[in-house]
């Protein structure tokens, strides 16, 4: 039995890995693989071309793959007469063809614009969410909107959703244009001599000064549009070889003699680029690891396994007491452990690539908190042998990883350089890790609380042993959480004192962590005083978690967005609010059911 479960498991895993990687790469073409790994400088770091392409398509189009609309005859423009193809196309292919065949892409609806108010202001069809560059560049009202945006920026007020959308559109169009004319494709490092320090610009001969009134960007790589001589030709060869390597072209049997394979072209170009400045040009290792990280998509893999684990516990639950129930519990353990390993592996890759603990934005903390939830779930499950803990952990981990995966415009998954004050301090790292891992314990308690309230609704007396069991688990979670949150909040004070000279400056993020701490401390004291009993603890764990949501999410997306003028609308505030409201209604319903039952009894 166990053997068959394990076989089933490994088969599922293998199938998953293949289906996932298959859907996002174009097969095993080594030329394409080499092009993915071509180093490119963008947004303050050197990254693989593939990552650049994904991020660019994400910004402009809103997804990391392009889904051609059925009527577009996409093949004929770029690859010579292939059949219309509506399969999703990978970002790399799209971004390459953007600058190779701009006249085609100018007509395709690839610029995402969702805000109805802005569409109205631009006289665009409100029912469409994506527009062709030609429509937008030719729009006679666009200049006016951008002028308004510039004027609004002058006031330095926070941008409201309308101007946020306008600012995004401005950068989408800017990036589209920059890809089209290849000025954003910075693929060759500067020669050592060119790389003069900032303060020497005034002594440069005039011809070299590009823009004398602005500070110089250090170590700025040269873009494809700035290349000259052999480098330019070699990049041109990549372009030709790329077109030949496109699936449609291969089918059409395009025989262009003299063009080397894409692999050779990319390798030749890389060799030349490296000789320009070997010190600045990365070796392939980290670039390769980043491509591997992006393609593995570890957190998606993890949540799929967490779901399976939760299902296995669910089955075990229905077979409670039956002889084969325990096999499902074991299967759930194995699945959850494998998922956790993948989760850990993905997380480690991210740590390696960014060179820091990845807890610097919402996306990273969501991944980290769900990891911590699983860690606590394993520990308490092992101590308590109550599969509700593992079930709760798996549900929370699934939920977090799905959220992280599905709202990239809110939770930015890209690898970003850090803001100055956040760089390289031990205290900051320890502080943030401690606070956020306390959220893991509270998250677990929240799920346990909801499960417990479910039992309350089903019948308090019939399930009193389960409720008792859940209360004990919640209590443990809250204790761990409170100690970690107290320590983390104090460490925040130590960090602030070390970095800013203020132990406590009423920074909203820190303050809300303190409010959450006060909420849980109040709950524990209320329990101690006898005000709150088992069911109260269940409800308390659920209600108090909304303070964590406020500290974790609300400070950035509700307070940070500026309560006064808009408040709701950006970053999914409406969904989170609805989620909390429904959860509170659930708590209220459980309470009412319990009271009605007690009165009846």
């Amino acid at each position, binding site marked *: 039995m166990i053997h068959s479960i394990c076989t089933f498991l490994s088969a599922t895993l293998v199938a998953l890995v293949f289906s996932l990687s298959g859907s996002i790469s174009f097969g095993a073409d080594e030329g394409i693989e080499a092009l993915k790994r071509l180093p490119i400088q963008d947004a303050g770091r050197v990254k693989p071309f593939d990552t650049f392409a994904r991020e660019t398509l994400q910004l402009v189009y809103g997804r990391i793959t392009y889904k051609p609309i059925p009527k577009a005859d996409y093949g004929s423009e770029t690859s010579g007469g292939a059949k219309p193809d509506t399969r999703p196309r990978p970002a790399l292919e799209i971004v390459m063809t953007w600058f190779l065949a701009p006249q085609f892409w100018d007509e395709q609806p690839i610029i995402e614009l969702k805000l109805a108010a802005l569409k109205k202001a631009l006289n665009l069809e409100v029912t469409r969410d994506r527009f062709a560059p030609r429509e937008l560049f030719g729009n006679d009202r666009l200049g006016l909107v951008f002028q308004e945006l510039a004027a609004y920026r002058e006031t330095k007020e926070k941008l409201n959703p309308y101007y946020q959308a306008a600012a995004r559109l401005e950068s989408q169009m800017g990036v589209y244009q920059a890809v089209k004319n290849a000025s954003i494709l910075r693929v060759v490092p500067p020669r050592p001599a060119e790389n003069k320090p900032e303060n020497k610009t005034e002594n440069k001969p005039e011809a070299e000064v590009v823009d004398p009134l602005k500070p110089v960007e250090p170590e700025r790589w040269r873009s494809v549009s700035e290349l000259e001589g052999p480098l330019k030709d070699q990049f041109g060869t990549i372009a030709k070889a790329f077109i030949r390597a496109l699936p449609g072209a291969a089918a059409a049997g395009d025989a262009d003699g003299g063009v080397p394979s894409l692999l050779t072209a990319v390798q030749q170009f890389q060799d030349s680029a490296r000789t320009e400045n070997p010190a600045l040009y990365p070796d392939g290792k980290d670039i390769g690891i980043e491509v591997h990280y992006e393609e593995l998509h570890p957190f998606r893999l993890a949540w799929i396994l967490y779901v399976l684990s939760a299902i296995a516990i669910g089955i075990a639950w229905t077979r409670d007491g039956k002889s084969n129930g325990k096999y499902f519990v074991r299967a759930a353990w194995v699945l959850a452990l494998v998922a956790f390993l993948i989760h850990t592996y993905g997380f480690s890759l991210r740590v390696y690539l960014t060179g820091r603990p990845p807890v610097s934005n919402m996306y990273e903390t969501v991944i980290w908190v769900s990891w911590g939830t699983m860690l606590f779930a394993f520990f308490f499950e092992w101590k308590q042998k109550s599969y509700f803990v593992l079930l709760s952990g798996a549900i929370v981990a699934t939920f977090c990883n799905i959220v992280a995966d599905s709202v990239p415009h809110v939770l930015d998954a890209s690898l970003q350089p850090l803001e*100055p004050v956040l760089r390289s301090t031990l205290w900051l790292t320890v502080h943030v890790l401690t606070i956020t891992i306390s959220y893991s314990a509270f998250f677990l308690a929240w799920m346990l609380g909801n499960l417990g309230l479910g039992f309350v609704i089903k019948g308090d007396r019939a399930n009193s042993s389960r409720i008792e069991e859940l209360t*004990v688990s919640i*209590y443990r979670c809250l204790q761990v959480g409170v100690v970690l949150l107290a320590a983390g909040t104090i460490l925040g004070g130590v960090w602030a004192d070390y970095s800013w000279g203020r132990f406590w400056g009423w920074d909203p993020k820190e303050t809300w962590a303190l409010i959450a701490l006060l909420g849980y401390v109040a709950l524990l004291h*209320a329990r101690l*005083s006898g005000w709150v*009993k088992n069911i109260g603890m269940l409800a308390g764990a659920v209600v108090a978690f909304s303070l964590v949501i406020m500290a974790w999410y609300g400070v950035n997306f509700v307070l940070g967005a500026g*309560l*006064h003028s808009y408040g709701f609308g950006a970053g999914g505030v409406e969904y989170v609010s609805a989620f909390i409201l429904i959860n509170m209604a659930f708590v209220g319903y459980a309470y009412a059911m319990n009271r009605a039952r007690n009165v009846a009894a």
Partner: protein
Amino acid sequence: MKQKFRRVIRQLASLKLAVLIILAIGIVTAWGTIVEAQYDALAAKKIVYSSIWMIAPMVMLVISLTAVMVDRWPWKPRHIGFIFAHIGIIILLIGSLITQKFGVDGSVSIGIGEKQKAITVGETDLAVYSSLDGSSYRKLFDEEVDFFLRPAGKKPLVISIPGGEIKVIESVPYAIREQKFVDVADDSNAGAALRFQLQNPNVNMTEWMLQSSKNAAETKDLGPAQVLIVGEFPRDFGGRNAIVLRPADNERVEYNIHSARTGSIKKGFVSAGEVIETGWMGLQFRLLKYMPKAKEEITYRALERPTPVTTAAIKIEFLEPGTGKLKVQWMGLNSLLKLFADEQVYVISYANRRLPMGFDMTLKEFKVGRYQGTLRAASYESLVDVPGLGQQLISMNEPLKHAGYTFYQASFDSDPATGKPTASVLSVNHDPGRGLKYLGSLLIVLGAIHLFYMKRRAWMMKGTAV
């Protein structure tokens, strides 16, 4: 008596009271974060965090914590965690109180190559000086003012001066300074004002320049190029690219454009709306507006909420001695206002308080490290010179400690036109409560850990039994 004391203590030590106090602190604090989001940190501090709404529950908390410890006397070993955590909180709060009362929390902004000897703190002072001759001044008034909590609109601040009166009749916490240039054809001594645009494919900037008086020389430094207004053209242009302008008549401005590369000088006349090729960097100079006699007028427009460019401002009503004329004028925080009467000149200063440090600090060098290929700042550092200490480097997370103060690299100011840093902003801090805060924190954490081990079972039992 003793029993009565016990009873009061027991009441104050009640856990239910403790829960209410904790919730009250949580609610007030949450309100503070909302005020901060709506306005700014200063508003949150004044309206909430330093107000009675915050202090009252804090005092109650200390009383409750003390009472519960007294109530548990005599203590047993199992109380260690509980005592540690509660004493820790009290010590932490005492430390914060000491910081608030005796600490200094301010900032120092030093221009590159310049010297600074005072710390700017949050308190604001209003001072009035008078002078007969414009060189020696007599102080008539100097007091701390807080128009945020006590707006002048409700209760004007009246300062009597010999034969007249200066009144602060209105105050707004958030206002935008607006600069206007107005024609003053009747003032024969007024200078000219110009508005111009410099443009090439990479640069597009529009600037105002005003001569402080007729024939006065003014310079605007725009990186490798300079724009000057002069009364007389210079002989030597200092080897730089320069556009030198001289008001010629009511319509035209005479120009000399010097090229650093060739050393040549291009001469001619330009009127509003016309364009001149400078001959360097493809830059075009366009004269947008020309006012031969102009004066600068500063007004403040009140906003409901702050933005990074707003400042506090007050409205001054001046009853001129002798003539009895009333003048009304706005002034912003950290500025001077000169009021001219027949015989005297009055100077009003409304500014953040500056505390002398007791030594000077010179900014030798300021560096911004940037992420590769971008203008995004990755790090800042200031090289400062302090007498007796020599040159010291202050960078993010690497403060300088000297004479009881700690200097932290906070931010920097940059030239809006060129983006180049012009001054380093250091936050300065003197915190006598620091030791207590650390001690309190340590006790809280140790106590919490102890509680975590010791109390779980007992708490659980009690919770289910009651």
